[in-house]
C-alpha cells in the first residue's frame, strides 16, 4: 500500500516536473558535448574534494614544521618536497584549496545578494534611487583593489578577512550594474505589465518575476569571476596584504618561496601551478556555463 503510494507520487512528480527534467537532461547533454567544459568541471570538482576532505587526503599536517628537513626535494616521502620550514608542500597545497574556495564563496555570498538587491531596486524604481545607487557603485568600482587592500591592511591589519572585504567592496558594483541592466529591459516587457494588471505588488513582481530572469546572467558572471577572485586574492597574499603565515595560502606560498626559485624550484612553483590550474578550471567552467546558458543554443528559450 505504501509502496503504491510512493510509486504514484513518483509518477506524478515526474509529470509535474517534466519540463525541468528535460531541461536538466539537455544541460547534461550540452556539458558532455563540450570537452573543455568537462575539463573545467573536473578541475573544480577536484578542488572541492581537496577542500572538504583535506584532513583525510593530505599526507601530513600543513602546519607541522620540521627544521631538519627543510627544502627537501621531491621524494617518495614528500611527493612535492618541503618548504623553507620543513612543511610538506603537497599537504599545504591541498589545504590551500580550501582557503582559496573559502575566499571565493564568501566574496560571492556578500556581493551577489548585495548587487542583486541594489541593482534590482535601482533598475525598477529609477529616479533618484537609481542615481544614488549607481553613483555609489561608481565610487567603489573606481577604487584600485590593491590600494584599497593596502588601506584596509594599514588600518585594520592585514588578514584573510580583510582580503575578502577588499575584494567584495570593489566587485559588488559589477553585479549591481548587471542586475540593473537586466531589470531595465525586463520591466518593460508585456508579462510584467500583465502582472500589474492582475494586481501583483511591486515586491512580488521584483522577486518572483524579474529576479528569476536575471539569475542566469548573474550566475554566469559569478562563475567567470571566480577565477579572477582567486587570482586577485593570490596577488594580495603575495604582496603580504592578505592571508598571513602560517595559513597555507597559495599566493603566500609563492611569495615566501620566491627566494628559493633557483635552487629549490619546487617551493614556489607548485603553489604557482595550483593557482594557475584553479583559475584555468574556473575560466573553462565559466565559459562553458555561459555557452550553455546561451538561449540560442537551447530550444525554445526566450
Amino acid at each position, binding site marked *: 500500500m505504501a509502496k503504491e503510494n510512493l510509486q504514484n507520487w513518483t509518477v506524478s512528480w515526474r*509529470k509535474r516536473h517534466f519540463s525541468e527534467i528535460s531541461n536538466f537532461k539537455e544541460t547534461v547533454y550540452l556539458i558532455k558535448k563540450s570537452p573543455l567544459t568537462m575539463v573545467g568541471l573536473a578541475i573544480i570538482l577536484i578542488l572541492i574534494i581537496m577542500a572538504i576532505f583535506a584532513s583525510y587526503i593530505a599526507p601530513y599536517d600543513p602546519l607541522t614544521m620540521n627544521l631538519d628537513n627543510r627544502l627537501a626535494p621531491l621524494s617518495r616521502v614528500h611527493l612535492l618536497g618541503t618548504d623553507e620550514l620543513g612543511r610538506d608542500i603537497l599537504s599545504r597545497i591541498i589545504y590551500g584549496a580550501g582557503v582559496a574556495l573559502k575566499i571565493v564563496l564568501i566574496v560571492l555570498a556578500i556581493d551577489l545578494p548585495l548587487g542583486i538587491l541594489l541593482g534590482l531596486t535601482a533598475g525598477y524604481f529609477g529616479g533618484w534611487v537609481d542615481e544614488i545607487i549607481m553613483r555609489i557603485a561608481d565610487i567603489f568600482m573606481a577604487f584600485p583593489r590593491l590600494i584599497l587592500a593596502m588601506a584596509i591592511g594599514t588600518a585594520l591589519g592585514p588578514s584573510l578577512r580583510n582580503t575578502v572585504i577588499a575584494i567584495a567592496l570593489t566587485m559588488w558594483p559589477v553585479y549591481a550594474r548587471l542586475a540593473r541592466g537586466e531589470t531595465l529591459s525586463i520591466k518593460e516587457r*508585456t508579462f510584467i505589465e*500583465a*502582472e500589474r*494588471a492582475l*494586481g*501583483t505588488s511591486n515586491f512580488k513582481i521584483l522577486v518572483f518575476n524579474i529576479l528569476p*530572469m536575471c539569475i542566469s546572467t548573474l550566475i554566469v558572471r559569478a562563475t567567470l569571476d571566480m577565477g579572477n577572485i582567486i587570482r586577485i586574492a593570490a596577488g594580495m597574499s603575495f604582496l603580504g596584504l592578505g592571508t598571513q603565515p602560517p595559513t597555507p595560502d597559495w599566493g603566500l606560498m609563492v611569495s615566501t618561496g620566491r627566494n628559493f626559485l633557483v635552487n629549490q624550484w619546487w617551493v614556489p612553483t607548485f603553489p604557482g601551478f595550483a593557482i594557475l590550474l584553479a583559475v584555468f578550471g574556473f575560466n573553462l567552467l565559466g565559459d562553458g556555463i555561459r555557452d550553455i546558458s546561451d538561449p540560442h543554443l537551447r530550444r525554445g*528559450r526566450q
Partner: protein
Amino acid sequence: MEELIQLKEIKKYFPWKKHKHVKAVDGVSLSINKRDIFGLVGESGSGKTTLGRMMIHLIDSTSGSIFYKGEDITKIKKLEKSLRRNMQIVFQDPYSSLHPRKKIKDIIGSGLRTHNLIKSEGELVTKIEQFLNLVGMGEEHLYRYPHELSGGQRQRVAIARALILNPEFVVLDEPTSSLDVSVQAEILNLLKKLREGFDLTYVFITHDLYLARIITEKIAIMYLGKIMEYGETESIFKNPLHPYTEALFSVIPKLDPQKRTEKIVLRGEIPSPIDPPLGCRFHTRCAKKIGEICEKISPPLKEIEEKHFVSCHLYD
C-alpha cells in the same frame, strides 16, 4: 442599459525629449455600457492601445476623467483590489505576455493568489484546471512552460488568466493579430462564448475593420488620438460619414471585386503624434477638406443619426 465606463476628454501625453510630447490620446469622450462589445479601431498612432490601457488604469492619464460605475478612477493612484480584479486585459502578443520562466499553473494562478481567492494549493489546481478546460486546453498543460505551447494555446492561457478573476470588464488588445488565420477564428469564437457565460463587457481593439464588424456592436474609429466617428457598428458600416472612415473602407482589400469602389486615395503618410496637425487631425490627407476651418478648429463630436456620432466640419 447600465453605463459601465465613461470617458470625458481623456488625454495622455507622453513626454518626449525636452519640452515635447507624444500626444497619444488627445481628448476622447465616449461611454460603454454593461455587456457591450465595444470596438476601438484605428491604424498605428491612433492611440487605441494607449486608450485601452488607460481604461483599466494600467496607464495614468494626463487630464480628463474616466468614470467606472460613477467613480472617477483617474483620481486614484493605486486601485484597490476589488476594483483591480474587475478590469482585466488580454494582450496582443502571446509570445511576450506570458512569463517565459513560469509554468502555466503559476501564470494563471498569480491573480488568484494575490486576491486570496483560493485557500489551498489543491483548490488552486482544481480551479485552474477548470479554466483550462473552459478555454479548450487540458490538465497536462498545467506544468508546461509557455515556449512549449503554440501561439493559439498561449493566447488561451492569457484569456484564462484574465477571466479566472471573474472580471466585469476586459480589454482585448488585438488578441488575434499575431495568430494564424485559422487559429484566429477559434479564439474569437471562444471569446464570444465566454462573454455569454461570464456576462462580460469587452473593449475590442483592432486595426481590422471587417473583424470589428463581425465581433463588435459599437465601434469608435480613432485617428491620431481622437475619435473621428463612433456609434453602432452596423450603422457605421452601412453609412460611413467621416471621410477617414470612407477612405479606410475603400482601401481595405476585399474578396469580392464588385465591392471594390473607386479608391479614395489617402495621400501621404500618417503624421507623427508628436506634432499632430492643428485643427482637424485628418485634414492633411482628407479628400473632402473644406478649407481653413479644417486647419484651425477641431470639429466637435456631433450626433448625426441616432447613436451615430461624427467629428467633421462637413456636418456642422
